[in-house]
C-alpha cells in the first residue's frame, strides 16, 4: 500500500497525484467516458448491428490495418533516417533534421492536398506510375491517390517524425564501445546490427512505433483529401464517424468511436507491455 503521509526527500506526492487524477479526468477520462457511456446506452444488440455493418467493418479494418502497416514502415525507414542524422555529419544535415519535423507542424489538410497533387495520376510522382509510364508498361498502371495506397502514403508521411524523434536521443547515447566489443569478438557488421544494436534500440523503436500508429489511427485531415473516400474501399473510420454525425446518427458515431477506442487501447497496451519487457531486459527497471 502506498503511504501518503510519510516524510520524504521528494515531497509533494499527494498534491501532484491528486492533480494527475484531476487533469487526466478533465482532459481524457471524462470525455472518453462520455463516448463509451453514450455507446453503451445503445444496448449490445444495436451496437453489434452497427459494428458488423459491412461499411463500418471495412472502415475499421482499413484504418487499423493501414495504420499498423504505416507505423511498421516508419519504424524501419525512420530508424534509417535517425541513424543517418545522428551517426554521420554531412552538408545539409541540419536542414534534413529540421525537415523531419514538418509533418508535425503543417496543418494536416495542407499535407493532404499537397500529397494528393503529387500522387494524383497527373502529379509528379503519380504520373510515374500512371498508364503510359515506364512502370505501367512493365508492371501495369498503379493508381496511388484515391486508393488505400494513397491513404498509406499519407499515414507514412504524418507518422515519420514520431519514430525519428524518439530514436534520435537513444542513438546519440548508444555506446560505440558495444559495437567495438562486438567487432573485437569477431562479429561482422550485420551480426552486430541485428544482435547488438537493434535489441538495444528495441524499446525506443517500439515507443516510436506506438506513437506513429496512434497518430495514424486518428489521422483525418490529410487522409480525406487523398483517400477518395469510396465506401467499403478507401473510407477510413474517422471519416465514417464524421459522416454519421452529419447524418445526425450520434449513436452510430459513438459506437464506431468506442470500437476504435477499445482497439487502440488494446494495441497500445500490448506495445507498452512489450516495451516494458524489453526495457527490463536492458536493465532499465522502473
Amino acid at each position: 500500500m502506498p503511504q501518503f503521509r510519510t516524510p520524504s526527500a521528494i515531497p509533494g506526492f499527494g498534491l501532484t497525484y491528486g492533480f494527475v487524477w484531476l487533469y487526466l479526468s478533465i482532459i481524457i477520462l471524462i470525455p472518453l467516458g462520455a463516448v463509451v457511456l453514450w455507446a453503451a446506452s445503445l444496448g449490445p444488440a444495436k451496437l453489434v448491428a452497427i459494428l458488423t455493418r459491412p461499411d463500418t467493418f471495412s472502415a475499421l479494418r482499413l484504418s487499423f490495418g493501414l495504420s499498423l502497416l504505416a507505423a511498421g514502415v516508419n519504424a524501419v525507414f525512420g530508424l534509417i533516417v535517425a541513424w543517418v542524422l545522428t551517426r554521420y555529419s554531412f552538408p545539409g544535415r541540419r536542414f534534413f533534421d529540421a525537415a523531419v519535423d514538418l509533418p508535425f507542424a503543417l496543418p494536416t489538410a495542407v499535407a493532404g492536398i499537397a500529397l494528393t497533387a503529387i500522387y494524383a495520376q497527373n502529379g509528379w510522382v503519380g504520373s510515374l506510375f500512371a498508364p503510359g509510364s515506364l512502370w505501367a508498361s512493365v508492371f501495369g498502371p498503379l493508381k496511388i491517390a484515391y486508393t488505400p495506397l494513397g491513404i498509406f502514403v499519407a499515414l507514412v508521411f504524418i507518422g515519420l517524425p514520431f519514430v525519428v524523434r524518439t530514436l534520435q536521443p537513444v542513438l546519440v547515447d548508444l555506446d560505440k564501445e558495444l559495437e567495438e566489443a562486438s567487432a573485437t569478438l569477431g562479429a561482422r557488421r550485420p551480426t552486430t546490427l541485428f544482435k547488438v544494436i537493434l535489441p538495444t534500440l528495441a524499446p525506443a523503436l517500439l515507443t516510436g512505433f506506438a506513437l506513429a500508429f496512434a497518430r495514424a489511427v486518428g489521422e483525418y485531415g490529410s487522409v480525406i483529401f487523398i483517400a477518395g473516400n469510396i465506401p467499403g474501399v478507401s473510407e477510413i473510420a474517422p471519416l465514417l464517424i464524421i459522416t454519421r454525425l452529419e447524418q445526425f446518427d450520434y449513436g452510430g458515431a459513438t459506437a464506431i468511436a468506442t470500437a476504435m477506442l477499445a482497439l487502440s487501447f488494446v494495441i497500445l497496451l500490448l506495445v507498452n507491455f512489450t516495451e516494458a519487457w524489453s526495457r527490463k531486459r536492458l536493465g532499465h527497471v522502473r
Partner: protein
Amino acid sequence: MELKIRNLRKEYGNFPALNGVNLDIRSGELIALLGPSGSGKTTLLRAIAGLEMPDGGQIFFGERDASRQSVQQRHVGFVFQHYALFKHMKVLDNIAFGMRYGQGRRKSEAQIRQKVLELLDLVQLNGLEGRYPSQLSGGQRQRVALARALAIEPQVLLLDEPFGALDAQVRKGLRRWLRQIHDETGHTTVFVTHDQEEAMELSDRVAVLHKGGLQQVGTPDEIYDNPATPFVYAFIGDSTSLPVDLRNGEAVFEGRALRISRVDSPDGPGRLHIRPQDVTLTAPSDGVVHGKIIGLRRSGGYRRADISVGVKHDRVEALLPPEQEVSVGDEVGLDFRRYAAFAEDREPPKLGLARKAA
C-alpha cells in the same frame, strides 16, 4: 604471440596522438602502457586492436603484418574501461557471443556452454551465468568482460584502463587477480593505465608514453631506479628538482659540484632530480647543499620535510624517519644518495605528481 610495432603514427587533425612509436612486446609478457591523459596510450592500444587506423607504420602479430587487417581478423581480446557488456544478454550469452558469431570454427551449443562455465570458474563467478549485466556489481561486470574476451582464445589480450571505473578496494583485488589469470593462461597481455602504482605492481614491463612518443620501456625496477628522461623521473614516483649547471660530467649547484653518472647531457643549464627518500640530512657544515627546514608533515611511516636551499630558496623534499630529531627552522646540510641530472627541458612536464622546485 609476439607483437612488433614499427614507427606507428597517428594524428587527429593536427594533434599527433602517436609520433613514430616502436615497441616490441614479448610473447607471454604482461606489459603496461603508462602515461598521463593525452599521451597516446589508448590510441596505441586501439591501433593494436584495429579499432583505430594508424596513418603510418606497421604492427606485426608474430611474423604476420596485421596493419591492414580488420578488427575481426586480428582476433584480439579487448576489455573496455566501461565493460561494454551487451545489456540485453545474460552473462552466459555475453561470454558466448564471440564463439557464436565470431570468425572461429563453429562450436556446438554444448561445447559453448561448457567453455562458458569453465571461464566463469576462472573469473570466479560460478553460478551467475543466468544473470543480466545490470544485476552485477562493477567488479563482477569487468570480470564477465574479461571472460568474454578470453572466450575467443585471443592471440593477444588488450585492456583499456580495465579498473579505471572501479573503487580503490575492488581495484586492488582485481589487480592481483588479473596477474594470477595472466600467469595461468599465459596470454600476451597489454594494458593501458594512468595509475603508476597499478603499472608497477602488475606488469612485467612498463612502457611510459608522453605526447605520443615512447619515453622508456623497462621493468618496473628499471623505470623507477633509472629513469631515462626527466619526464619519467617526474612522472614516476615523487621527486623534486634543483636548477644546476652541467659542466664536464658534473652538476654544479651554487658553486658546489656533484658527480653525475649520466654525462651524455650537453653542458649548460640543467636540472638535478632527487627523490625524497634519497635525501639525507647532515650537520649544517657538511653536505653538498645547505638549507633550512620550512615545513614538516607526517606521511604514513615517515615524515616529509620541506627544505629551502640556496640563495634562490629552491625547495627540496626529504623523507625522514620519524625518530630523526628535527624541527622547523633548523639549518641543515643535505646529501643525496642518488640523483640524476638532465639538460634543462624547455618545456618542463606539467604534472600534478611532480613537485617542482618553488
